[in-house]
């Protein structure tokens, strides 16, 4: 990589969280870099930088994608939605179910969870667990995430009465 501060830039037009923007971007930037370092949208995290963990998940034209695997220039003409665009009022189920612990994976989890909630037909082909498999979480063991997604869609949790409730015996 050349050791020069002067970098070529490309101008792109895109929509980010509903705002139409014209942006000068470096061709080497990833979409994640554009969002975090240049637009101050730090919700999406870099957990691995190679599309495995899903902490950087955003929606591109409605579909969840790893923003570390997409170049910023590829946002041209697209609509990008980050966790900052999600209505906090829609997050109550995930909050109550214990879907977040350390919070580092959470913005990506929220994006995928919100997509599943809006696309219930996807459950005809795959389980909530399979649809969430692109978002690694090291804290929750996934119970809280899965139960929160299911509750937000009006389904009972996986364990029925046990889910999110009082698991205490004796």
């Amino acid at each position: 990589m050349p050791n020069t501060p002067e970098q070529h830039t490309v101008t792109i037009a895109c929509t980010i969280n509903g705002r139409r923007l014209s942006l000068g971007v470096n061709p080497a930037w990833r979409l994640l870099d554009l969002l975090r370092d240049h637009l101050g949208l730090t919700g999406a995290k870099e957990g691995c930088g190679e599309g495995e963990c899903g902490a950087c998940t955003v929606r591109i034209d409605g579909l969840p994608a790893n923003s570390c695997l997409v170049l910023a220039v590829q946002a041209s003409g697209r609509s990008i939605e980050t966790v900052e665009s999600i209505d906090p009022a829609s997050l109550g189920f995930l909050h109550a179910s214990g879907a977040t612990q350390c919070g580092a994976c959470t913005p990506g989890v929220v994006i995928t969870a919100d997509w599943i909630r809006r696309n219930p037909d996807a459950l005809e082909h795959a389980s909530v667990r399979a649809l969430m498999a692109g978002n690694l979480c090291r804290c929750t063991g996934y119970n809280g995430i899965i139960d929160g997604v299911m509750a937000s869609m009006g389904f009972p949790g996986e364990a029925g009465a046990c889910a999110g409730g009082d698991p205490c015996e004796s």
Partner: protein
Amino acid sequence: MLRIEGLAKLTGAERYVDDLPMDGALWGMTVRSEVARGVVRSIEFDPALDWSSFTIVTPEDITGPNEVHHIECDQPILASPEVRHIGEAVALLAHEDRDTLRAAIRRVKVNIDHLPPALDYRVDPEPDQIQRGEDNVFTELRIDKGGVDAAFAGAAHVVEGEYECGAQEHIYIEPQGMIAWVDDNGVVCCKGSMQCPYYVVSALTHAFGRPEERVRVIQTPTGGGFGGKEDYPSVIALHAALLAIKAGRPVRIIYDRDEDMLATTKRHPALMRHRTAVSADGKLLAQDIDVIMDGGAYVTLSPVVLSRGIIHGAGPYTCPNVRIRGRAVLTNTTPFGAFRGFGAPQTHFANERHMDAVAHAIGMDPVQFRRINIIRDGETTATGQVIRDGADRIGILDSALTRSRYRQLQREHADFNASSPDKRRGVGLAYFHHGAGFTGAGEVYLSSIANVAGLPDGSVEIRAASTEMGQGKETVFTQIVANRLGIDPARVRTATPDSSQVPNSGPTVASRTTMVVGHLLERACDDLRTIIGAPDARGDSLHAAIERWCDANPGAEPVGAARYRPPPGVHWDDKAYKGDAYGTYTWAAYVADVEIDLRTCAATVRAFTAVQDVGAIVNPTLAAGQVHGGVVQAIGWALMEDCVWRDGAMANNQLTNYIIPTADDTPHIDAVFFQTPYEFGAMGSKGLGELPMDGPAPAIANAISDALGLAANRIPLTPERIFTLLTNAQHA
């Protein structure tokens, strides 16, 4: 009560170290050894590059002791002249532009004269591999109870077994990161992702020869720790501080995932050998246990990991004669450090696999064999500690059997296995315990302090160095204080863990935070009431009393304080390794239901039941979350997380080929709590965070052994390992 910072995390508003704006900050990076062992001859900076815009720190820039302060000070801040592992820090660079820095770091060459490395902890080192003492042994510990040798002589059965656990990488989703700067008063400041702010304070005061008030350490919201941010943040803080001092500007070091996996600590690999004497009716007569742990290149926390490991080595059973010998040895491998469970998962894995093996060998049902040997109130542990906590240990076992449908599963699986051409199912049990808080006299030595201050508006503020890293400390502390003072949790604030603002409440480790520090907060609440002259005040009358005190003492604030004091009657002899190793223990029975696909040799956990007594539960959702997360982290360790070593460095230091469980790899975890209150834990609680890491691996290995009719004694049980087990069984 819902997690206090939950909505900030769900909306992405929470700011982690990599999210913080830092005007004028440089990026820092680390030049690392590519050699497992050797002597640095020179560090070459490519003359074709103009280095004038870089800040460069080499070992010559270190004016104080070149030592990272841990238990010992054997680990250098920057290796000089000897390097002891691949990935060891040799020099540091900083620059305004991160891409420029990344390109430049590849143009630094470290010339190293190779020396023979010690790479296998299981074999005795050759003379030219010795780097510590006469045998590369960091620590040797021993527990003796009764007379083991005599007990073997007359036993009806003697059963031996060998068990092995691999390393495990923490994979906190937020990689390590730290920002350092020197403030206007010349105070060296570090801010970043960490579990133990005062460990970093000690590292800075030691290395820079400064008094505590001349350094300042602030925890940022921490995206997972699991022990990985117990000891290592001291290293990265020292690196960032060295660069910041030299540059005269703030420096931010954020590890990429591959660097994090290459350079930071992991769970200690361990090899355990068991020899057990049993009577004709299945009572344990003698346990002779040998534990070797790989410590890696430096001591870090290995002596205390080994200590906890051997203390848990004989399991939650009573046996009149026990000998446990443990060694932690040096290898030229990335140092191993703290990881949830802290040595106990390894020794519990061995012991619980061995309990099944012994039951099998003597022709007894493994549940029954455990049932008759589980420690009863009034009986003693391996260190001679009398257990008398009133916990229903047999009830826990029975609950796990009932909830998991253990007996029905055994019958169903027998039918399934008889008819399925390509799948096998098995069910496995593990029974185990975990000592809560620091081992032995550790809590006395820590002498932790926590404060609860009254504020002018009548509300209160919690001041402690305990950190939130996902486990729910912030919420649970708030509940504990609100409960003690009879006030609305909304009137309780929590001060940021900042060493200039909060006392040292000890490290956020060892399942001690709710139980030990929470109890300090309860006592600090009582002290606050005494200070404000309202010993019985609750609710509004308490708020009013604080306001009155503040009005009467302008410019001052009432600060309730409590310092740790051990529960009465707890005695530990660290020389003889006898006595009360922990103030209290938690108890658990876990059942795994597993299926193996004989075509792919992949094992899948179909269902998992986790029954435990961790004292009174402060917050059911958060407590269950600790169990769910711990179990899944342990499923990963048991089945898929395989650190591949090449010359003592992790060769698969990427999430692409070091795989951790996804939602689709794991079942719903059924977590159940018995609640026997503990008098000296906040609101009756005991430690919780680590226990769930101890049991799943042996339960799963027992289930796989049950399904395949062979002994799965080595984890991780990856498809390759299971294939080998099956192949060897066919050839046997």
